């Protein structure tokens, strides 16, 4: 197994920081969708509607799941790019 000291540590620090930034941004979206929209503010948001359903209710039972799929997909693509940029892909 390689350890960090054999590689360029500075690059790897930058790689890790970019990784953390990607994860942090995606998890912010996750938090807003799951907790803010679907739990904390579900009642006021139910005054708006998606089709025949309240917006908050729709997000809690459908919309959030669609967004979760997109988040995992976005993560795989962004990390692919990052791995290539820092030459740590396989």
């Amino acid at each position, binding site marked *: 197994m*390689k350890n960090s000291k054999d590689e360029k540590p500075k690059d790897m620090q930058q790689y890790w920081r970019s990784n953390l930034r990607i994860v942090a941004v995606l998890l912010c979206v996750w938090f807003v969708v799951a907790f803010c929209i679907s739990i904390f503010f579900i009642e006021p948001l*139910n005054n708006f509607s998606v089709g025949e359903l309240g917006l908050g209710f729709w997000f809690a039972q459908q919309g959030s799941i*669609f967004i979760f799929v997109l988040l995992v997909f976005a993560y*795989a693509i962004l*990390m692919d790019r990052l791995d290539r940029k820092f030459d740590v892909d396989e």
Partner: protein
Amino acid sequence: MMLSNFSLLAAADPARVWTWSFVALTFAVYLYIGWRSRVQDSKGFYVAGQGVPAVANGAATAADWMSAASFIGMAGLISFKGSDGAVYLMGWTGGYVLLALLLAPYLRKFGHYTVPDFIAARYYSETARVVAAICAIFVSITYVAGQMKGVGIVFSRFLEVPLEIGVVIGMLIVGFFAVLGGMKGITWTQVVQYFVLILAFLIPSVAISGMLTDSFIPQIGFAASDISQKLNDVLVDLGEKEYTQPFNSFTQLNVFCITAALMFGTAGLPHVIVRFYTVKNVRAARYSAVWAIFFIAILYTTAPALGMFARYNLMKSMHNARIESITIESGGAPQVFSDSQAAEKERRRLVGEGISVFPIYALVSTEGEPLNWATQWQRTGLLKFDDLNNDGSISLKLIEHTGEDGQATVQSELANIDKDIIVLSTPEVAGLPPWVIALVAAGGLAAALSTAAGLLLVISSSLAHDLFVRFVTPKANEKQKLFIGRVAIVFGILVAGYFGIHPPGFVGEVVAFAFGLAAASFFPAIFLGIFFKRANRAGAVMGMIVGLVFTLAYIVMATSHKVLPMFFDGPLLTPDNFLLAGWFGIEQGISPQGIGAVGMLLNFIVTIAVSMVTPPPPQEVRDLVESVRIPRGSGAAADH
């Protein structure tokens, strides 16, 4: 005996012929695959030799993940909890995001067999391994118990045996598959099981959506049709609350806590994490996560639609149904009564003799359809009616009723409906053809079997690989290790079977307890292990113990009368004295389903605090953390 039963009952119930055929056919396929890919070495047994493609691993992960709780339990719970049912939908899928972004790629890079392996290496401690292995065993057994009840319900309905016998049949079948296959057998079987269960879920959902709304796509029928409004109106009319109104079943605090506990628990579930060890490299781990959540989302976005449609259908077909006859079976020949009063008199007479019976109502809906499905389900004891006002029909209106003991309660004439029968009964309620009913039964079994097999493997690996081989018989050879693994599976099944017969709640709720335990024990240890280099042995061990003990104690105390009926008559904790009740004007404290979120918070605090006041981890461990953060080299890491 089975054969004579088969031919005897076949004529009476075409659904049973189909069920037998589908169950036999799917089981034959699973058996064939298990046999083809049977394994002789322990690497194949635990991680399938790390050569599974991302799409296949995604489907297998999805099947592993979606258990009897997702298939049988969830839509039923949603259909009774309405808006608050979202805790299960978001909890399980949202947790998947955490798993995919925060844990899976790094654990794949680490590349060993089990979660306790990672904990032991990262926290340079065999004590940490033991604690993690014990946590894994508790989480997995709780989870398998939920599956066992699910399998038990399917068998009890379609073989017409009591629930207990159904659970025992389930134990035998699950055990047989798990002992035979190991991880490799399980992976390919699970790929097939995914397709069985998703078809079994989609076909009735699409059919019902087409029947009730203008669209055959349940997700569109759900949002675009007026069913939500109609259901709200019906419920309000019967004296209940609107379906789409939030916080009817749980308080807002509990919706938050349960969602959080399910999310972090999902991310910490050992049998799902283990899945990511079976792919080629870190990139494949990320993409298999994409495939898995895609496959999961197909079922998870359909379930709320099915839940709503099923509730509406159920209300419509049962409300004001006329009572055709009432049958009382008490050992001898069944007695048939035509009016409720005579039946009630006979029931009281038998109760007086110490014989407890429940009358089986034969009902005809207001549209003149005989409700045969209701008769069948009453035989399992999971559906009960009681014609309180003796007017010869079943009303779902909530009314005040004075019982034999003189106590007044608000109830309807639908005396009891177990929420776990909703999904299984939906095709019958909707009058779909018998082969659809059979397909749903086969799908429910596929869901329960695939998950139970994965979990039993974790129990087996924790007991055999992490505890027994290391501490009791370190010199065991491959053959002995496999033998110990299989004995451990049998042990796991027996314990899970006990809790399948004495479940602390509905399938979905029991499973929620398992997630709470996982959130409180594993998630912080793994997460901090990757993202917080300073986390050390003392911190992690203390954190896991505090999280697990706190959460387990709370759950057991709140369900003491159900899990240990021989010792307790009532729960030791009730909603009035749950955590936080009475603080800051909060009326209802945190329910046992959501307590894992608090346990996790405690675990985080203890781990970080203890780590900071004890010496930092050694250099090799910090190098290990550096190495799991970089994808390259995962193939090599897996070999040693």
